[in-house]
């Protein structure tokens, strides 16, 4: 659905300092399903999305959306719905009128507008001016706008921004439902819990570069889950033994020891400690989360700055 290779975007400011917003991103989004695009603030997610949608001219690299280059984007734009950064509508027009104006462009019927307002839960407030909406309502109207065309590919840039917890859950359900209907959703976020719960596939970016990509399980496995926690009678002695064997072992305040090791190889610890006459009372893998993975990845990428 989306392919980008070597995508790069530099912004040159008048003061002469260039900002590299996107620094050679390769990206493949295959549908259907939810593809998360994860990265801390300022990592180039929005800029990448703008390049995909022809809003910003890449400095280098190539982009294809639904198989078409940017110059031919108009041939497929009817199958793409997108929300970039913040919701953008005419403040004095009502939510409904704003959607109607967009709908006119593709001959979308008024009944579809109401349908969409229903989907995003704005049916009752559709007649109020956009500027009277709360941030969450604005966000939902913007998501509604992306659905008007009943698109195959939906690009959402931080759709959870400004939503309250209930709204976030609602948004998550909506995204899942769309994916279950066979749509492809490319959703960016800097909030990890979000992505972990909704995404099938994940691309993590930091400082304009892709640092990991794959299924959510693979990404987590590739970084997180490398610790086990052991409980033992003589923690000080055990820590000594493990350290001298070259493991990164650390005694925690509860006198358990966490050791950096792939849990699948944890049997070796048991063996080694047993060799010194120490027997484990318990060994458990530390449940890794995407959060850990994400922090680890992005921190190592930011390292040295």
């Amino acid at each position, binding site marked *: 659905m989306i392919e980008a290779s070597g995508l790069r975007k530099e912004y040159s400011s008048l003061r002469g300092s260039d900002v590299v917003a996107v620094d050679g991103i390769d990206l493949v989004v295959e549908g259907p399903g939810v593809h998360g695009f994860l990265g801390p603030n300022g990592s180039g997610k929005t800029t990448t999305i703008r390049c995909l949608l022809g*809003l910003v001219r890449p400095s280098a690299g190539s982009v294809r959306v639904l198989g078409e280059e940017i110059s031919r984007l108009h041939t497929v734009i009817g199958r793409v719905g997108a929300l*970039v950064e913040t919701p*953008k509508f005419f403040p*004095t027009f009502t939510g409904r009128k704003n959607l109607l104006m967009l709908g006119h462009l593709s001959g979308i019927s008024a009944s579809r507008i109401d349908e969409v307002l229903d989907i995003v839960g704005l049916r009752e407030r559709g007649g109020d001016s956009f500027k009277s909406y709360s941030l969450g309502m604005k966000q939902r109207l913007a998501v509604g706008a992306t659905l008007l065309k009943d698109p195959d590919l939906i690009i959402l840039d931080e759709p959870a921004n400004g939503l309250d917890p209930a709204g976030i859950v609602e948004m998550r359900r909506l995204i899942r439902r769309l994916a279950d209907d066979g749509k492809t959703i490319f959703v960016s976020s800097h909030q990890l819990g979000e992505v972990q719960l909704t995404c099938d596939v994940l691309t993590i970016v930091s400082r304009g570069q892709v640092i990991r990509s794959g299924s959510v399980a693979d990404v987590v496995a590739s970084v997180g889950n490398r610790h086990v926690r052991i409980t033992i009678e003589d923690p000080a002695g055990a820590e000594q033994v493990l350290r001298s064997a070259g493991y990164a072992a650390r005694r925690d305040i509860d006198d358990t020891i966490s050791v950096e090791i792939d849990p699948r190889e944890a049997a070796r610890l048991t063996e080694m400690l047993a060799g010194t006459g120490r027997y484990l009372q318990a060994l458990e893998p530390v449940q890794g989360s995407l959060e850990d993975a994400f922090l680890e990845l992005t921190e190592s990428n930011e390292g040295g700055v």
Partner: protein
Amino acid sequence: MRLLRTELIRFWSRRIVWAVALVVMVVSTVAGIAVFASHSNEAPDNEALARTEAERATEECVRFFRNEEFDSDREQIARDFGFDLDSMTDAEFDEFLRTDLCYQDPQWFRPEDPRFFAAEILVESYEARQMTDWSSEREDYSVADTYRFGVREIRQANDGFIGILPVVATFYLVIAVLIGASFVGGEYRAGTLENLLLWEPRRLRVLWTKFAAGFLSSAALTAALLAWLTVLLYLVATQRGDTSAVDGRFWIDIGSTIGRGALVGGLFFVAAMSVSIIARNTAAAVGLILGWFAISNIVIELAAKWLRQWELFNNATAFIREADAVRNERIQGFWQTVYAHGYVEAGLVTVMWVAALALPATLVFIRRDID
């Protein structure tokens, strides 16, 4: 077509459009009321009044010269006019004073006609233009194409203002500039341009549809506002004045003046929108265009006389007035303004200016990052 419809809806949904239209309509209504109040339907016997006034002035002059204290002046006069004072009777001298030296033409004493004459006030007749005669020096500086001496009877206005419709049309260009300069500016600010491009990524199409919608709407708005003023003043003329000289030709002049004003109103929308795209700023675009409007003739006079015949506003107003564009020419040591080209060419020059702004704006718009 859908895009055009959307842009038309947006144009007429903008508050600035209605606000400006409202202000202009209120101001012209107030002006209409003022004209109504300051004119009267009664046509006094102007000729008799003028004759009495002239006679009174003549007698005063005669009395002055009859006074013995002015003997020396009398001799001076006699020398100047070459007659023998001594051989003249007093009566003969009085007669001379009355018919010659002191004669006051009643024409000079005509009081202003209190009636409002529709015919000249809205659009001037050709003959009114014949006053600008730059051509006396040399044959090849012929006067305007539109110099059609004697084509028609002079319409009968002798009011202070003559031919105001084209002048008002020129000032209505400010409206087109305001609306045009803010048309995309508002959209960049609200970010809705981004939405639009997510529905129609072909930017050339997007921009030129905006130009088209703005041109049509701005022209319609200008025409409507000029028509409003015409209707008001015509009604005033029927109630407080005279419409006897109104003929088919008058309505053709009115219609074509409004038509040309509307055309230029549309063009100035495109020009202002173009400048705002290049300058990325509504206020800068308005300032630039109206600033040039204010100072262009000073700049031309002081620094660039060659520019006069090619300058945007001079050509736009010439086109609206169906008058000729002039240029500066040094004739026998003096700068004179002489005929440069007719009003149709002036219209084309205006179009060329607008195109010269719209094309770079298009290039900028196609290439610019939207973020």
